[in-house]
């Protein structure tokens, strides 16, 4: 029974994410594309929930949906000179399509040829508390990579502020 529920939920989320991605690439309106991207992000957050990655799902919503999408929308709106500029040509490219298709096909072949035939998820379920403990424990934990990641973020923040400063340059 739960297997079926899982399958149905996965099917919906997969449809949502792939459909959203396709819509994002095919819509001619940039603003709509950004909203479609948001939809994909939310669907992926759902996929994370399906994979019992509760914390990551919430971070996905908080970061990608809550922050990155809004940032995208802001930049789009700031770089449009007229409202009508939001409508853009479709930019279809057969070469790119062929390349991407080839890429996907090879990955598909690789996955199909691989030995990953794990049918069911293991019964052990990761939980948030263990995640936090592992993330911040000094021995065998991830605290140093985590600190480095925070440094990366800080540097990026400073860089972004510097770049987007209006005057004095």
């Amino acid at each position, binding site marked *: 029974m739960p297997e079926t529920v899982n399958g149905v939920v996965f099917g919906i989320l997969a449809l949502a994410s792939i459909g959203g991605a396709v819509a994002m690439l095919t819509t001619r*309106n940039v*603003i*709509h594309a950004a*909203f479609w991207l*948001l939809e994909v992000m939310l669907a992926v957050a759902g996929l994370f929930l399906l994979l019992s990655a*509760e*914390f990551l799902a*919430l*971070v996905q*919503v*908080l970061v990608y*949906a*809550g*922050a990155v*999408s*809004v*940032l995208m*929308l*802001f930049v789009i*709106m700031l770089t449009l000179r007229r*409202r009508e500029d939001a409508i853009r040509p479709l930019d279809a490219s057969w070469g790119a399509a062929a390349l991407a298709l080839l890429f996907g096909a090879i990955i598909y072949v690789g996955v199909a040829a691989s030995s990953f035939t794990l049918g069911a998820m293991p019964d052990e379920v990761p*939980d*948030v*508390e263990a995640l936090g403990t592992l993330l911040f424990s000094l021995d065998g934990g991830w605290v140093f990579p985590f600190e480095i990641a925070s440094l990366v973020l800080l540097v990026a923040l400073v860089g972004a502020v510097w770049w987007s400063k209006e005057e004095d340059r």
Partner: protein
Amino acid sequence: MSDVLRVILPVLAAVGLMLTNGVVLIYMLRKVLGHLHLRLGPMHVGWHGVLQTVADVGKLLTKEDITPNNVDKALFFLAPAAVFVPSLMAYAAIPFSETWRITSLDTGLLYTFAVLSLVPIGVLMAGWSSANKWALLGGMRAAAQQIAYEVPLLLSVLPIVMLSGSLDLVEIVSAQGGYWLGFVPRWFVLHPLGFIASLIFLVAGLAELNQTPFDMSEAESELVAGFASEYSAMKFGLLFLSEFSNSFIISALGITLFFGGWTLPWIPADWVAHIGPIIFMLKTYIGIAVFMWIRGTYPRVRIDQLMSLGWKRLIPISLSLIMVTGIAMKVVESVRGVS
């Protein structure tokens, strides 16, 4: 079938609560602001005007739903829902009492913030799709403000998470049980670090709600009604409703984090065990009344003042508060360990 019921009933309850809350809050806002302005507010429909809101709802429901010509139709229709749904979802983790809540989550606090972070998207959607410069400006202002103040809001909560050691809202409330010195309730608002955190939370929360003194997004004198300018009838109603619902959620979060949630001090817990939700609602409405009090008292700040307050004051303060909390906890721990 009971599984399905267990899912659907709480959702229906949340929707009901949200709608009732909206109706009640409109009346309350009118009355509170009226009395703050030394006037009476609505008086004619029903006893002391209690039915005024009901009449307003009727008006909203029956009005013609106008869709202006140039709007981006899909987004224009989606926007009210995009504002309403996250606001509704946020009720899921609020603990009205130890047992009265829609779902129990280990990460309830994070969940609430994640859901609330989706609100600006709906606002942007509404602002953009309206094809109206007031709406667009209002929407962008509101979104920028909410994005900016989400950061200090989240950061101000982290000391509480550190002190109580959990993201679970129920655990945070139960961490506030007991007394300091035998009579001071262990509410985090009475904790020296928690007090500073609560002040930051109050300011950031007000900004997050686009409430006076931070209501640039719908400053009537500048932007008509902000991102909601072009909306009418029930779509407008939804936007309005979710705004009231948001202030309910922020107030409820504040009550949970700093004022002991559904508990009452000095009264044995089993006496009030069954009226926990009532206590919680009362506290929440007192919090909302404080918001309204501030709204009726303070003038509006300028947008650049708002931004610099958020980025240059609140974020550094809350970051250092986190650091101080960590150090203080280590010190206390080592002192305890020694003695």
